[in-house]
Structures are given as structure tokens and as C-alpha cells.
């Protein structure tokens, strides 16, 4: 639309104009009539008659004009913005390098951050799916050192009947898997006992049917079951009519009353079955066996601390009543989310910290670019101002430019975020809930707004300054900056800041990489390669007591050992890395469990070939043999760590020890016949725990863990092993089958994943810092073209020129590194628990990162420096 000079809009003016127009009309008519011979008065009347209701017409026309003005003003504003956008696009196209760098920086920052935060959110932060998840608490008891989530039936019963802080207290108890028969092949299914109140505390509406009723959760209640969503889908065909039908579990018929919500996962496996806890009345006084997990739903308005005080009082009462039993002295009440997230807090904070650092670097980089750009454009802006562009107009144009950059970067960032999440989800690292990760919309919006906001702020500051330019001065300078020092310094500060932040990121990543390397070089104390671990459960219907069970396990073991390709096979109650066995205090003969010399040790079982199969040496004495029979003398093997703690340097072989297993009143004394090498049985990042072994024949469990060493790749033996097992008893099946290497890999998954995320963030930071340094030095080169030209004309060597410029980058790099090192020293202390085998001020990591950053600074300044040496002095001097 063509713009013409127009007086500003006002209602008065409109009124006057309309009046003038209509008066002109009437006056014209009157004169016409008078000319035809009418008297003035008649003419006025006649003209008025022909015209109609003047007041009405005037009002109508006025209203039309007002609307016209408003619409026109609106349209012009849009046209102005449209012009600014067209202009900005043209400007951005004119400097593609700047545009590309700015947009990519923003995209990388927004995208990488959103992707990583999305992962952190889903894996670690996502709120619990329970209806009252914020009021659910979990209990732990302590017997002295460490907290144990296993609660005794007696404590649970006492709290439940006397407490007032909770709406409900519920309990659950993980069991050995039950064998599901009648649906395809017999399959072991993970089993938990759960009380009716447990479901009330941890309530998510069931997918089908219902959870347990109080009547079912009672001794002698009807046999019912709730199946997990995955079990229902995978094993039961997702049959909607399953409710009311029976499943055969360990030979017993149980009516399915409900399918739990698919969100109901308290740790793997996804395929589970719940049966009523039906807390036995006979155990209401059992304050010694720490077995069940207890969850509570706080009453509205009751705090965790208040509830903890009440339960603490109740527990002190119990302890006073039962002086002899193993009653816990202290109880911990912790919100469920805290008990899940708590152990990962360092990890979460580290990742969030790293993400924020990258975001800061992004902002610094964008600010840097925009400041540089504003400087380059001083001349252009001065000319436009001189030609009559208003300040508002210039500022609005620069802002539109920043906004376009921010939007383009933001949009591309959304793409990067989506691609990043896809990449992370498909990463081979097995992290729980990782598959559920989707781009977290609020975070994306936050990162997006931050980046656009950043572009706007740093676009605005130079824009305002530019608009205040002293025109004459600037034009006389030929658009070059005479007071560039301040600007250069502020850019240098930004770059130093970026380098410093990058250093913190890289050192954090470096420490974790070092930890991961050290961790993978830990000797576990047994040979992990080509070792298969599988559990076997003997159903109690056919194997009711110890003799049948031990005989059954032995038959399976012999069948497996007979398979060609099996080098060796052994048994224990739970394999290392796969769990901690029983832990209770072990004490020497003549002492008791409360003696200060008693040691809290893992108890496992071992058959005669167990140590040989694992490749763990017996450093003293002997391994178990088939002569260590159930009715023979009780024997034991201790690990070196346990031997040291119980007997110091004395020879433990021949000494007698006992622990909680056997009888509650008179200790069952076992004679130590051997000492085994230590194993990092609780994970490679943990010290080798003290371990105590009883022969499988003398401490019989319903489940045994078989360890199979192959002479050929052991996974190829799996079908034969299954056949051999089924050959012994078709109702017996393998469960939890995995290789030892895989099991160890799973325990290392989270640290490795963290390491990768930090390394990715560090690399992002490094690239951004590189761009930052490059930008500053390029700018210096542009600003000093004339000086460089003169130097070249005067015969300066290329190397001199290059050194002059590279030196600037080097100085920035060194300052950044020095400050960064200081900041890192303070920051890495918080990595604490994530590190393994390195200190938070590991000199090697600090050294490598410092050298790397300085090198990056040199490289980034060398490229523009080299360009400077190709300046033609004639052109440079003539240009000014």
C-alpha cells in the first residue's frame, strides 16, 4: 500500500471534516436553488428536505471514518513489521556465516538440552503414577548400621493397630517365583505377596477387575491373584474375560480378580503376579525376621516427620517389651519418591548442572555473535539514521532480526531434540524407563523461550546503543569503531566465561570417563567370561523338604554337567552380582551375635564344584566335597575379607563360627574348612564384601542359582540345558537366565550412561567455545585490517602477523583455563559418589582438559589469523 503524508488521526478532526463536507454539499444546493430564483430561506428548507436527517448522516459517516482510521493504523503496523521481516531476512542472507553459526548454536543448545533433560526427567524425575503418590511413604529399620527396607511382621502389626498418622499401612513381600502351568509351557512367574491395604496405599486404577478385598487378605481367605499388565498381555493373550478365571500357580488354582495398571511397575520383571499377603496371626509377635516391605499412605495434612515421630515412639515401646529378640531400635520413614530418587540425587543434579552449563554457554555465544554484529553494522545504522529512520524504527528492525534468529534456532532445536531423544532411546545402554522417554514439552518450551529471550536481550542492548550513535562521528570514522576497546573486552569476558564453563563440563565428563575405565579394569575375583547364570525353583508340592530339594537340584546339576560343551557347573543360593544372599552377623565360637567382634556378612551356599566353576581360588584349606553331607559335621568356608575381620592374621581353618541361620536360641556352629578368594559380589564399584558359605547340602533353599561354564560359547548351550532340566522334571524351568558379563553390564549401565551424557554435553560445550573464540578473533582481524595492511606493507613476516593474532586467542584460552580449573576444583567435589577410583581433583584429567582447551583456543584463532596474512595492503589501505 502506498503511503502518503497524512495528518495524525483525531476524533475532532474527523468531526470537522465531515461537517465541512456536508456543509459544502448543502451550501452548494442552496446556491443552486437561489440561482433558480428561490428565496434563501426556501432554498435552505428545500435543500434540507432533499438531504434528509443531517445529524443522523453525520453520525454515521463519522463512525465509518473512525473505523477506517483504526483499520488503516493496524494495517500499517503490520506492514511495518512485514517490511522489517523482509529487511531482516535480507540482512541475514547477506552474512550467511553469522546466520548459520547463530542458528546452529541455538539449535544445538536448545535441542541437546531438551533431549537430555527429557531423559533425566523420564528416567529419574517423573512423578510416581500412584493416585496419592505424594503421600506414599516407605519404611526402613536399623539394627545399628545401615538401613534395611525389610520390616518384621511383628513391627508391622504393632504399627498398623496403634498408628494414627496413616490412612492405611500396607505390606508386600517378594517371593520366589511360582510356576505357572496350564498356559503354554510351565513358566516361572515373579511373585509378590501384597496386603489389601498395600493396593490402597499404592493405588492406580486397575486395568481390569479389582485389587484384593480385606476378606481375601486373611488367613484362609479364598485363593485369588492379581496379574501384572505385561503378564496378562504376553502370557494370557490379553483376554478381557480373564477376570474370574483360574490360573494354576505352583499347582494351586487361583482366581484372577484383577489386572494391575500397566503403569504399575515397582522394578522389573514386568511379568508378575500378586497374591494376598494374609499376614499370619502367629507372626504378630515376630520382631526378629526382617522380611516385608511396608508402605503407608499419610493422612491428609500429616507430615512425614510427624509420622516418623509416631512410629519411632511405637518402635521404642516394642524394643522395651522384647529385650531379647532382634528388635530394631530405629525406624526411618521416607517419602516413596525420595526413597527412589534419593540415591540418584547426585546423578540428577550433575546432569541438570551440566545441562544448565551448556545453556549458559549457548547464551554467551549468541550474545557474543550479536554484539560483534552490531559493531560491524555501526556504519550502516548511522547512514540509515542520517537518512531519517527513527530510533524506534532502527531498534525494531534489529529486534526483528534477533527474533528471527531465535525462532529459526528454536525450530531447528526442536528437530535436534526429537532426533536426540530418538538417538538416546536407541542407545544400547540398558537404563530403566529409557524406552518411555519422549521429548518433554515444558522443557522444550523453556529452552526455546530462554534462547529466543537471550537473542532478544543481547540483540536489544547493542540495538539501543546503536540507535544512540553520534552520527557525525561515526560517519566521519567511515563506520569503524574508535572506542572498540570496551566492546572487545566485553566479548573477551564472554569467551573466557564460555571456556571456563566448558572446562567444568569437560573435567566432569573426564572424571567419569576415568572412573568408567578404572571400573571396567576391576578384577571381580572370578572369571566372568562365558559364564551362564540361571535360577531353578523346585515347586514345594513335589519337593516339600530339604532332602527332596537337595536331591532334585543334584539331579539337575548332573544332567547339565553331562551336556557336551559344558566345562563345569556349580550351584549356590544366589550368584554374585545377582544379589546379596542373606546378611546377618557372623560370630566366633564363644561369642554371640551382639558381640562387637561379630561381622555382618553375606551368607551364600556353595556346592563342591561352585568355586571351581567360578574360577575363584581356595587360598587355604579345602573346598566343599560330597562328603559334607546334611547329616555330617557342619562346615563353612569364609572369604578372605571375612577371615581377616573375624580372625585377623590367625589361621581361620579349624575355627568354628555361627550366625542367624539354624536355630534362634542355640547357635549352629560350623567349622571353617577353607578360605576363598574375595569377590566383588555386590558390584564392581563396591569393595569385596565379607562372605560366608555353607554347603548346599547343609543349608537347603527352594531356589538355587546354577553357574555354568562353557567349553564352547555358553549361550549356544542354553537349549540343551533347558532340555536337560526338563528331562529331570518337566515342571521345573529355568528363570532369570543371563550371562555373567551381561549381569555385570547391567550394574554398570547407569554410570556408563551418565558418562556418555556428560561427554556429549562436554563436546557440545567444546564446539560452542570453539565457535566463540573463532568469532572473537575473526572480529579482531576485521577491525585491524588497516593495521595489518600497514604491517604487511612495512614488511612484517606472515608468522609475525599470525602470532600477533593467535597470541590473543592463546591469552583468552589460558585465562579461561586458569579460572575454569579453579571453578572445577570447587565443583567436582559434588560428583562424589559418581566417581570410582579417582579423586575429584585428578591431576591427569585436569591436565588433559586444560591442554585440550588451550589447543582449541589456538586452533580457533589460527584460522582467522591465517586469513589476515592474505590481506592485500593496497586494498586494506584504500578501503579506509
Amino acid at each position, binding site marked *: 500500500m502506498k503511503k502518503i503524508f497524512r495528518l495524525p488521526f483525531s476524533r475532532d478532526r474527523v468531526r470537522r*471534516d*465531515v461537517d*465541512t*463536507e*456536508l456543509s*459544502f*454539499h448543502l*451550501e*452548494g*444546493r442552496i446556491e443552486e436553488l437561489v440561482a433558480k430564483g428561490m428565496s434563501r430561506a426556501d432554498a435552505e428548507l428545500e435543500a434540507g428536505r*432533499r*438531504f*434528509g*436527517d*443531517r445529524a*443522523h*448522516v453525520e453520525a*454515521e*459517516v463519522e463512525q*465509518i*471514518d473512525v*473505523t*477506517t482510521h483504526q*483499520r488503516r493504523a493496524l494495517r500499517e503496523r503490520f506492514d511495518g513489521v512485514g517490511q522489517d521481516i523482509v529487511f531482516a531476512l535480507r540482512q541475514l542472507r547477506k552474512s550467511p556465516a553469522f546466520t548459520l553459526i547463530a542458528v546452529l548454536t541455538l539449535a544445538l543448545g536448545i535441542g541437546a538440552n531438551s533431549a537430555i533433560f527429557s531423559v533425566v526427567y523420564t528416567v529419574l524425575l517423573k512423578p510416581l503414577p500412584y493416585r496419592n503418590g505424594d503421600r506414599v511413604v516407605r519404611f526402613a529399620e536399623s539394627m545399628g548400621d545401615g538401613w534395611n527396607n525389610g520390616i518384621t511382621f511383628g513391627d508391622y502389626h504393632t504399627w498398623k493397630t496403634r498408628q494414627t498418622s496413616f490412612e492405611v499401612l500396607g505390606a508386600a513381600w517378594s517371593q520366589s517365583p511360582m510356576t505357572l502351568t496350564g498356559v503354554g509351557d510351565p513358566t516361572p512367574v515373579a511373585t509378590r505377596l501384597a496386603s489389601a491395604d498395600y493396593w490402597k496405599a499404592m493405588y492406580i486404577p486397575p486395568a481390569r477387575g479389582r485389587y484384593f478385598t480385606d476378606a481375601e487378605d486373611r488367613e484362609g481367605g479364598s485363593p485369588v491373584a492379581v496379574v501384572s499388565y505385561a503378564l496378562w498381555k504376553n502370557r494370557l493373550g490379553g483376554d478381557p474375560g480373564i477376570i474370574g478365571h483360574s490360573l494354576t500357580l505352583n499347582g494351586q488354582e487361583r482366581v484372577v480378580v484383577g489386572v494391575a495398571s500397566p503403569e504399575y511397575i515397582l522394578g522389573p520383571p514386568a511379568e508378575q503376579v500378586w497374591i494376598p499377603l494374609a499376614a499370619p496371626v502367629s507372626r504378630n509377635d515376630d520382631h526378629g525376621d526382617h522380611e516385608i516391605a511396608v508402605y503407608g499412605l499419610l493422612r491428609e495434612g500429616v507430615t512425614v516427620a510427624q509420622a516418623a515421630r509416631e512410629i519411632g515412639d511405637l518402635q521404642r515401646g516394642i524394643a522395651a517389651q522384647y529385650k531379647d529378640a532382634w528388635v530394631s531400635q530405629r525406624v526411618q520413614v521416607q517419602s516413596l519418591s525420595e526413597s527412589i530418587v534419593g540415591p540418584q540425587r547426585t546423578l540428577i543434579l550433575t546432569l541438570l548442572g551440566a545441562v544448565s552449563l551448556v545453556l549458559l554457554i549457548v547464551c554467551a555465544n549468541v550474545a557474543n555473535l550479536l554484539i560483534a554484529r552490531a559493531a560491524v553494522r555501526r556504519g550502516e545504522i548511522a547512514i540509515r539514521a542520517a537518512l531519517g529512520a527513527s530510533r524506534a524504527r532502527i531498534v525494531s528492525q534489529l529486534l526483528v532480526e534477533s527474533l528471527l534468529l531465535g525462532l529459526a534456532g528454536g525450530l531447528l532445536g526442536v528437530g535436534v531434540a526429537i532426533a536426540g531423544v530418538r538417538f538416546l532411546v536407541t542407545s544400547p545402554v540398558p537404563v530403566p524407563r529409557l524406552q518411555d522417554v519422549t521429548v518433554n514439552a515444558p522443557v522444550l518450551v523453556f529452552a526455546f523461550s530462554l534462547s529466543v529471550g537471550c537473542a532478544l536481550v543481547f540483540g536489544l542492548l547493542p540495538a539501543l546503543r546503536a540507535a544512540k550513535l553520534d552520527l557525525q562521528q561515526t560517519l566521519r570514522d567511515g563506520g569503524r569503531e574508535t572506542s572498540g576497546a570496551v566492546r572487545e573486552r566485553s566479548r573477551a569476558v564472554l569467551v573466557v566465561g564460555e571456556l571456563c564453563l566448558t572446562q567444568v563440563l569437560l573435567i566432569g565428563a573426564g572424571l567419569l570417563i576415568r572412573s568408567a575405565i578404572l571400573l571396567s579394569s576391576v578384577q571381580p575375583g572370578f572369571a566372568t567370561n562365558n559364564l551362564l547364570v540361571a535360577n531353578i525353583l523346585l515347586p514345594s508340592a513335589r519337593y516339600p523338604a530339604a532332602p527332596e530339594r537337595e536331591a532334585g537340584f543334584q539331579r539337575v546339576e548332573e544332567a547339565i554337567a553331562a551336556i557336551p560343551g559344558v566345562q563345569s557347573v556349580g550351584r549356590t543360593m544366589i550368584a554374585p552380582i545377582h544379589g546379596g544372599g542373606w546378611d546377618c552377623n557372623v560370630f566366633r565360637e564363644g561369642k554371640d551375635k551382639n558381640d562387637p567382634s561379630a561381622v555382618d556378612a553375606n551368607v551364600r551356599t556353595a556346592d563342591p564344584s561352585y568355586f571351581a566353576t567360578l574360577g575363584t581360588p581356595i587360598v587355604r584349606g579345602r573346598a566343599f566335597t560330597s562328603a559334607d553331607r546334611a547329616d555330617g559335621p557342619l562346615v563353612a568356608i569364609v572369604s578372605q575379607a571375612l577371615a581377616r575381620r573375624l580372625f585377623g592374621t590367625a589361621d581361620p581353618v579349624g575355627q568354628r563360627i555361627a550366625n542367624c541361620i539354624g536355630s534362634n536360641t542355640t547357635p549352629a556352629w560350623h567349622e571353617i574348612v577353607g578360605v576363598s578368594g574375595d569377590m566383588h559380589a555386590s558390584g564392581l564399584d563396591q569393595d569385596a564384601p565379607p562372605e560366608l558359605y555353607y554347603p548346599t547340602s547343609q543349608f537347603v533353599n527352594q531356589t538355587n542359582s546354577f553357574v555354568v561354564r562353557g567349553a564352547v560359547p555358553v549361550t549356544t548351550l542354553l537349549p540343551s540345558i533347558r532340555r536337560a532340566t526338563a528331562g529331570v522334571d518337566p515342571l521345573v524351568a529355568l528363570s532369570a537366565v543371563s550371562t555373567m558379563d551381561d549381569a555385570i553390564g547391567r550394574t554398570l549401565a547407569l554410570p556408563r550412561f551418565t558418562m556418555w551424557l556428560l561427554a556429549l554435553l562436554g563436546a557440545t560445550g567444546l564446539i560452542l567455545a570453539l565457535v566463540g573464540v573463532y568469532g572473537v578473533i575473526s572480529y579482531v582481524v576485521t577491525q585491524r585490517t588497516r593495521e595489518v595492511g600497514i604491517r604487511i606493507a612495512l614488511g612484517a613476516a606472515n608468522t609475525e602477523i599470525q602470532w600477533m593474532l593467535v597470541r590473543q586467542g592463546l591469552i583468552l584460552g589460558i585465562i579461561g583455563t586458569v579460572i575454569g580449573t579453579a571453578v572445577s576444583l570447587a565443583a567436582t567435589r559434588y560428583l562424589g559418589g559418581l566417581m570410582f577410583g579417582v579423586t575429584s581433583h585428578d591431576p591427569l584429567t585436569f591436565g588433559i582438559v586444560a591442554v585440550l582447551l588451550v589447543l582449541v583456543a589456538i586452533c580457533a584463532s589460527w584460522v582467522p589469523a591465517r586469513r589476515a596474512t592474505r590481506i592485500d595492503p593496497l586494498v586494506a589501505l584504500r578501503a579506509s
Partner: protein
Amino acid sequence: MSDDLDLIRGTLDLFILKTLTWGPMHGLAILRWIEQVTESRLQIEEGALYPALHRMEQKGWLDGEWGVTDANRRAKYYKLTAAGRKHFTARLSLWERYTQAASMVFSAKEAIA
């Protein structure tokens, strides 16, 4: 009978647009021109002319500009814009088809069986 009003208003708009194809004029001149060519057969309520003019100005069919008459008096002159010319052409052909059809109806001599 809003249809009737629309018809009449639309007609007035067409008259104005047609008149202005001869060149810029003020409101009174437009009326005089219409009176002249119709030999004063149409009685237009003169006041209705101005809302029509201003509305068409709002739509961008006319450009209003203040000028001075031969008698040295300030008057608002209206000029047909390109958009106005285009609109007029389109409406005129519509109008012609309509009047043709209407006259066929009114002049029908006998009922068609």
C-alpha cells in the same frame, strides 16, 4: 425487506462508481451528474450518498482527498482506485445479467404451458 435495501444500496454504489469513472468529483458533483444523465428521474435521498462514499473509501475502492473548487472553497474529492475500478467492472456485469433476466420475466407475453 433487507434484500430490497441491499439492492438499492448496491445500485447507488454502482451509480457512484460509474460516475467517478469520469474523473475525481465531490459528492454534490456526483449527484448532479446522476441527475443530469437520468434527467432527474431518480429521487435519491441526498444524505444517503455520504455514508456510501465513506464506506467505499473504507473498502479502498475510493480515495478521498481534500481539494479546492473553482469558487475557491474546500471540498472533498473522491477518486476511483484501481481496486474500485475492478469492483465496478465485476458488479456491473452482474447487474447487467440481473436486469436482463429481470426484464425477460417482466416482459414475458404469455404463460409457458
